């Protein structure tokens, strides 16, 4: 397991578990979730591919698995799935808490 993959699992595990909280009805809008994540993967994946191509940044080979998609380590592509998921979950959770407190 790469270090980067461990970071992704630690970041995503609690939001993933809590996303099944019944009152939240998070997966009622699964289509919106897929579209939003797909948009982020496309836009920010393209930016990242360009940045790596230009040499803006690079990935320490000790921290990532050797599998790549174009010039990005697989973990970097997963980052664009895990982080939007965590963000959308946090947004929904805050909206839910806000409504409950009203």
């Amino acid at each position: 397991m790469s270090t980067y993959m461990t970071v992704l699992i630690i970041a995503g595990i609690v939001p993933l578990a809590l996303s099944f909280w019944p009152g939240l009805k998070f997966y009622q809008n699964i289509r919106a979730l897929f579209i939003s994540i797909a948009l982020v993967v496309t836009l920010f994946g393209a930016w990242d591919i360009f940045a790596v191509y230009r040499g803006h940044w690079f990935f320490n080979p000790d921290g990532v698995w050797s599998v790549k998609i174009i010039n990005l380590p697989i973990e970097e592509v997963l980052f664009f799935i895990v982080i939007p998921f965590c963000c959308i979950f946090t947004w929904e959770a805050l909206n839910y808490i806000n409504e409950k407190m009203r």
Partner: protein
Amino acid sequence: MKEYTVLAVFSVLATMALDRTSGVRVLRKKLYYIFFTVIIAFKLLVNGYLTRHIVMYNPQFFMGIRIGTIPLEDFLFGFSMVTISIICWEYCKKTHRA
């Protein structure tokens, strides 16, 4: 101007324009700022770790200002990514309620 800096500033302007033109206007909601504060806290942990051990930046392409180990431009990148995901989510929730 450095290339990453230019792209990062452009992404913020594009995100603000998208928020307006999509009609979502998440940037006008008070809850958004609470949300963003929570996200920044987690960002400092995750991005702080990644920029220390995994992602290496070429000083030629960013301003060289870092908050801890995180380049300033990464906060703009993060703002755009997080905000676009919320704009898209809110927009899709309204249009295709499944």
